[in-house]
């Protein structure tokens, strides 16, 4: 890790007492979900990370508890640094506070996380599904949601699949 990133990590550790993981030269801050708005605002204003490059989530069911990790990737232009903030969210009641007041693109990204994972964001101005149809049930990127794989039609099973394939009428 280079020295500038070290300084940011030390400041974060002393300010918020969060755990830090290092992997392949990247720094990951593990933060409690309740403090996430404070951490993100601090990183943007005090440490000058004005760009939220990416925001996504991972589902660790059934291996780990808490089940979800919400991941924020922040970029600093002046210092040319990137830092990753991870917030573990329990699966029983997946609720986080919204950071759409801090970064405007978090609005759509949080809608996407709600759509795909079912993590609800408190205080979000527009909590609707964004990628799936509005009446879709289920959250597709969860590990217990099936892929929806359909058996491909080869020559040996052509007729039997043909019978149950829903062809369109005129």
């Amino acid at each position, binding site marked *: 890790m280079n020295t500038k990133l070290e300084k940011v990590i030390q400041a974060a550790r002393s300010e918020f007492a969060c755990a830090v993981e290092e*992997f*392949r030269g*990247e720094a*990951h801050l593990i933060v409690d979900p309740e403090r996430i708005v404070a951490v993100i605002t601090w990183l943007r204003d005090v440490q000058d990370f*004005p*760009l*939220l*490059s*990416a925001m*996504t989530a*991972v*589902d660790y069911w059934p291996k780990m508890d808490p089940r979800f990790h919400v*991941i924020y*990737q922040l970029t600093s*232009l002046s210092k*040319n640094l*990137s830092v*990753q903030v991870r917030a573990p969210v329990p699966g029983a009641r997946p609720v986080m506070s919204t950071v759409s007041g801090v*970064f*405007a*693109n978090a*609005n*759509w*990204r949080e809608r996407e996380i709600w759509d*795909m994972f079912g993590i609800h964001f408190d205080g979000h*101005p*527009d909590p609707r*599904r*964004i*990628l*799936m*149809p*509005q*009446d879709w049930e289920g959250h*597709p*990127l969860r590990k217990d*949601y099936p*892929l*929806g*794989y359909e058996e491909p039609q080869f020559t040996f099973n052509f007729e039997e699949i043909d019978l149950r394939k*829903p062809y*369109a009428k005129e």
Partner: protein
Amino acid sequence: MPQLQEVTVDELKHLVSNRAIEGETVLLNMGPQHPATHGVLRLLVELDGETVVNCVPDIGFLHTGVEKNMEAKTYQKAEVMTDRLDYLNTVGNNLAYCMAVEKLVDLDVPPRAQAIRVILTELQRLASHLVWIGTHALDLAAMSMFMYAFREREIILDILELVSGQRMMTTYFRPGGVWRDVPVEFEGAVRDFIKLFPKRIDEYEALLTKNPLLMDRLLGIGVLTKENALSYGVTGPMLRASGVDWDLRKVRPYMGYEQYDFEVPVRTEGDNYARYLVRVQEMREALKIVEQALDKLPMGPVRSDNRKFVPPPRSEIGTSMEALIHHFKLWTEGFEAPRGGIYSAVEGPRGELGVYLEGDGGPKPYRVHMRTPSFENVSVLPVLAKGHLVADLIAIIGSIDFVLGDIDR
């Protein structure tokens, strides 16, 4: 057969202003099938006469479930799906994914492969900008531009076909390098293109840049301020046209970009015209990079020789037992990646194309998230379109240059 959902006014109440509910303004649906939305984007536009009061984008009509599908395939096989995301920058998507895999498993890329990757990525950037300029001008009623742009694009697609056998979805880049070495005709074809193209860009500029009709339609329209750009996470030519000098090829060089001498065009106005000028200048700079990379193309292997991740060449399999075992393992099981998540980004023609890749010790990626630039770029459309006319909305859509495959994944 699922039925079309009828949307009630209650569901729209929080999206549109009170004037729409009372009937003072008109709610217009620019539906998913529309000649000027550059794909299946649905826009709910609130109009006061001809002026746009608000515009709500509705995406998801091309949602392909790529991220979930990639979790079910091995790392090598999942790369095939990355081509089809931003289908105008297919080689760039491959590059982003391969770089993420190489970062995750700590794999080296030999210099010749890096140079070949740079050449093809910059040619793909040119092809993407050509489609942009062709369709943007087509929307602004300069129809012949479309034909010229696609004529040049055919030459670039011929080069891609020469190298990989496929015009668009090449999957030519693989983790560790490229699939195989370029044929002997490659250098001649690229040099012919380098000789031909600068005059063509001059032709396009002569047709469009100082054209009073184009300037009328683009100047001062869709202004994106620097604060809005950073707050909305906009990257790429849109960000550089708003005054922020941030290009990942310069600030975090990868694949040997630090060896090449090129400039990054930055403008401060932030309107459609600034974005147009930035992209046209980027086309010239991309051509410069291609020429330098071709001149400096080093000799050597085109793929890493770490046999745990890269299959051995066919000739070795007949003579070496280890080669046979490596080949067998790679084809039946795939290679194993360590536990942990990384984020790796490249500069695509639309902005920062990032991949969050997490491995779990097995041969299949545990989580792949593609941070696609068009998602953020389109979310800023309501801000840009406020107060302009419907025709300006079309010009702004063309100027943002998004691709629906990128947005919906």
